[in-house]
């Protein structure tokens, strides 16, 4: 089973995601954003970075990339779709996850380990976790401050403290169906003890275990 890691121009976490997925025995492949056919893939990850330099709004331009039509198709078919950091912002802009992102409350870029808590296990990201489980994982964003006037987004992980002002301290949010998830901290950065934490493994495993052959 194969996961497409969609590369928009300006994205930079794509190799890290492939590295982490592969280390877990999964299969991941980089897909350029102009690709129009993802039929050979069973799920998709939108990695972190600065798609189109965050011009206009984070994720605003990326959502129009041809590959996103296919991501939307996958999402519609119930396949696992994960947006990490900037990837989550793209999912919001394309309407696959409610809400949008604005600048962090304190207007500064935040790169550090934070603690998050699982509040809902019904998602492709949290399936393998338990409610109340604490996860130590690096945050790395300027626009991590999620707002959702519709209150339709389902929060699956919360920050233990409140680093950026995100609504409901949301660190990860899922679509109603639970197969499309946006997460602000970087699971792929918490997959090696040498680098400070392995707490991200369970999240990526959940994603991989949610893949079903197309």
């Amino acid at each position, binding site marked *: 089973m194969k996961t497409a890691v969609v590369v928009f121009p300006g994205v930079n976490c794509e190799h890290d995601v492939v590295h982490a997925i592969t280390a877990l025995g999964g299969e991941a492949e980089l897909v350029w954003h102009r690709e129009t056919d993802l039929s050979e893939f069973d799920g998709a990850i939108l990695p972190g970075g600065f798609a189109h330099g965050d011009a206009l709004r984070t994720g605003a331009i990326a959502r129009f990339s041809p590959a996103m039509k296919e991501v939307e198709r996958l999402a519609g078919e119930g396949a696992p779709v994960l947006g990490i950091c900037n990837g989550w912002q793209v999912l919001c802009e394309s309407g696959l996850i409610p809400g*949008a992102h604005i*600048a962090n409350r*304190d207007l500064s870029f935040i790169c550090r380990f934070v603690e998050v808590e699982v509040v809902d296990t019904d998602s492709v990201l949290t399936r393998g976790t338990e409610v109340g489980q604490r996860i130590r994982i690096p945050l790395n964003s300027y626009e991590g401050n999620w707002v959702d006037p519709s209150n339709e987004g389902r929060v699956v992980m919360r920050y233990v403290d409140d680093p950026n002002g995100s609504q409901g301290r949301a660190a990860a949010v899922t679509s109603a169906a639970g197969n499309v998830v946006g997460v602000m901290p970087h699971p792929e950065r918490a997959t090696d003890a040498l680098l400070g934490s392995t707490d991200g493994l369970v999240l990526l495993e959940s994603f991989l275990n949610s893949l079903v052959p197309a």
Partner: protein
Amino acid sequence: MKVTVTIDRRPEIADPEGTTVLRALHDLGFTEATAVRMDRVIHMDVDGDDPEIVRARVTEMCRQLLANPVLEDFEIEVSR
């Protein structure tokens, strides 16, 4: 034609930049400032000779790309 699109963040949406600037103004002694909202202006040159058609097209650009309905309202001014 010259087109000016003003993109204002909805009042109910937080504006961390505005809040920070207001605090900074107070620190500098500009206490008479009581509210600050930071918004965006997009200046465009658009080919076309019928202002109405241009406005319609730019409205479409705003709907699709330039403004995010979750966060923002937009206003369009067309001039020669």
